[in-house]
């Protein structure tokens, strides 16, 4: 049984937005998550630091942090956390909150996810060429040259799809996702 914090609505928001998020209240600040994270050295704040900031009610700095966007979903933190806090799920929750409020300084990662899903919502399947094309033009225009050999290799070995695949019941999928978004907006 926990007492909801009236003085820290941000903590309550995060806990409510992540499935299983209640465990965050028991964080020991031991640092196992920050120690395990493969992309940790590249983050503004370690995951542990982010949780300390959430505990301190620092909503905007947390949501503006690049930490969740550098999370690679390796789940090492989740598996090692001595308090069984679902850390990766909390990172997803923070991303969702950041996107909803437009609170990120670097749009590379949010845009990547949005572009990826744009193809999925329009066709039912992901479309790599479309994703890479749009993303690179917007965020890494000279990047294409760096991986030219890979691109050529993919094409010559038949690993590159040139058109998106459309699923049959695409209308059904669109109705499902529209309804889902409507219900999500009400939470």
């Amino acid at each position, binding site marked *: 049984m926990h007492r909801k914090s009236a003085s820290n609505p941000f903590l309550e928001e995060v806990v409510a937005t992540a499935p299983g998020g209640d465990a965050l209240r028991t964080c020991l600040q031991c640092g196992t998550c*920050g120690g395990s994270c493969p992309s940790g050295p590249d983050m503004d704040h370690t995951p*542990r*630091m982010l949780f300390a900031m959430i505990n301190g009610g620092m909503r905007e700095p947390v949501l503006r942090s690049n930490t969740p966007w550098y999370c690679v979903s390796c789940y090492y933190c989740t598996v090692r956390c001595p308090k069984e806090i679902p850390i990766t799920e909390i990172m997803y929750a923070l991303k969702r909150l950041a996107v909803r409020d437009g609170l990120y300084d670097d749009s590379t990662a949010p845009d990547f996810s949005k572009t990826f899903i744009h193809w999925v919502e329009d066709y039912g399947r992901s479309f790599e060429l479309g994703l890479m094309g749009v993303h690179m033009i917007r965020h890494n225009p000279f990047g294409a040259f760096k991986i030219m050999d890979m691109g050529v290799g993919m094409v010559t070995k038949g690993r590159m799809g040139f058109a998106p695949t459309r699923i049959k019941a695409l209308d059904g999928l669109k109705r499902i996702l529209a309804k889902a978004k409507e219900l999500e907006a009400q939470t």
Partner: protein
Amino acid sequence: MSEKVGVYICHCGSNIAGTVDVVELAKFAGELPGVTVSREYKFMCSSLGQELVAEDIKKQGLTRVVVGACSPHLHEKTFRRACATAGLNPYLMQMVSLREQVSWVTEDKALALDKAKAMISGGVRRVQLQEELEPTPVPVNPNTLVVGAGVAGIQASLELADAGYPVFLVEREPSIGGHMAQFDKTFPTLDCSACILTPKMSDVGTHEKITLLSYAEVEEVTGFVGNFHVRIRKRARGVDEVDCTGCGICIEKCPRKVVDDVFEAGMGYRKAIYRPFPQAVPKFPVIDRANCTFYERGTCKACEKFCPTNAIRFDQEDAFLDLDVGNIILATGWDLFDARRLSQFGYGRLANVFTNLEFERLCNAAGPTDGRIVLRDGVTEPKSIALVHCVGSRDKKTNPQCSAVCCMAALKFGHLVMEKTQAEVTSFYIDIRAPHKNYEEFYDRLQDEGMHFVRGRVAEVTDAARLPDEEGKLIVQVEDTLIGKQRRMPFDMVVLMSGLQPRADAREVGLRFGISCSMDGWFTERHPKLDPVATMTDGIFIAGVCQGPKDIPDSVAQGAAAASRIQGMIARGTVMIEPVVATIHEENCSGCRICNNLCPFNAIEFLAEKSVSYINAALCKGCGTCVAACPAQAITGAHFNNQQINAEIEGLLYDAVRGNGGAPKPVAVPA
């Protein structure tokens, strides 16, 4: 009913009075049939409150007392004693729990008063049918059984034996000493562990009042407090204890070398015939039959050939001893957490990752390296050592508890490393737990001596180098939480501070003695704050880490505490058995034996000659199972007979009995 009942309603400060209208309640009680006097008072358990009861008994000639207060668990004894001192049999007093059952379960005052009235009414009706009862004295056998000869068991045994009472000390391993015998130095004094332990071990070995049964286990326990019967299995050493002089030639000549998994924590070797360590008590070696050539193939017999006193007995068998003791102390100790369960630390795969117990053996001058701190190759001295705290402790996935000793042990290790080598040593911790006398000062000392500390729970230990300066090292990857950055730090050696766990067979052992374990697996004490060495089973005590992780001073204190309790009982000579027990009326018993197997305390036996069942009052706990089960209603539960129970029920339904056609008056139920 011509009894004179006194009713006392306690305010318990505001605990009861804040919710229950105690004045109204006392007035109500005063009008109940049989009640002579009814009072309410702020704190009934105070001396003044008790005097109130005693005075009324004397002056008003009360024959029954009802106290409406807290739970009987807390003050039943208090009020019984108050009655007894005033000359009233203590079992003519009934406590009604107005606090735990009424004021602490609702905030609704109307509901609370209603329930309180019902309960007082029940108590008043019931108490008038209660009978005078006398506890039964049973003699206490002055022998004591101590199970486990680590430092707690040793301390308990010595205290009892020095007081002049016989002790049977049973130890599973070939020698006494337990884990403490494996350590090098102890914190915070840096006393050599063996140096402070072996004098006690020696005392145990030579004490005329202690019968040491080593390499033995308790097979069966029956009986009750003051009168236990135990069956001990003395395992076959393969060596005759009368003829053996302890010269050790057999050990020298034995050709079979085996990894010593127990005393050397897997770091060293012993022979198939062995003594766990040089100062072992008793001195007699043991033949490890699983690894002995003779038992495998029938050949060798080098020990027998060379023994100058013909003490080897290959055909020796386990022997059984039956003992009578008055009390039992369990001091069975702990197991080390198996660090291979946390594969991210690389224990078992990366050669130079050690556990704390392995490291103790390295540091110990009598250990496999004669006290040199070296890497797994047995030769190289490490230049950098990492100590990883909380391995298998404070972790919901393995053991949620803190193991109490590892922080201090890590500090100790730090000191030993800096004393014996030129290595730099770093502790990786979540918190430094240094609660007891001189512990914080020890932490300060180590900081001063130059030990390094990084606050962060180690994420992984790996040999996969990312950069050239990591090659060939063990990398500790951790978040330095005080800086807020992930660090990868290279070390030659990593020591995991593995946690303390209950023994693997703790539950089974507990059952054998009739005590229980908590969810975490440690033996359950009677009260965690006020009675940590007694258990819910009278006559069985626990001491040392088997009750929960603790350091040596606390283990010694608990051993002494348990011994002291037992000494008190022996000195009194008898122990009083509660009279709230069941009795079988022979005339009504048909010998159907339905009750026999229902008793959870094995208190019922069948007397074949008379063809009736019989309840041993000393074992009976008055649970009432047999009373309910007997088809002939031949069993009465004292203090809980049918008339008393029915009276209480009638009292509870006081407002249904009168008028209302038998249906209870409707009570407002909260929305």
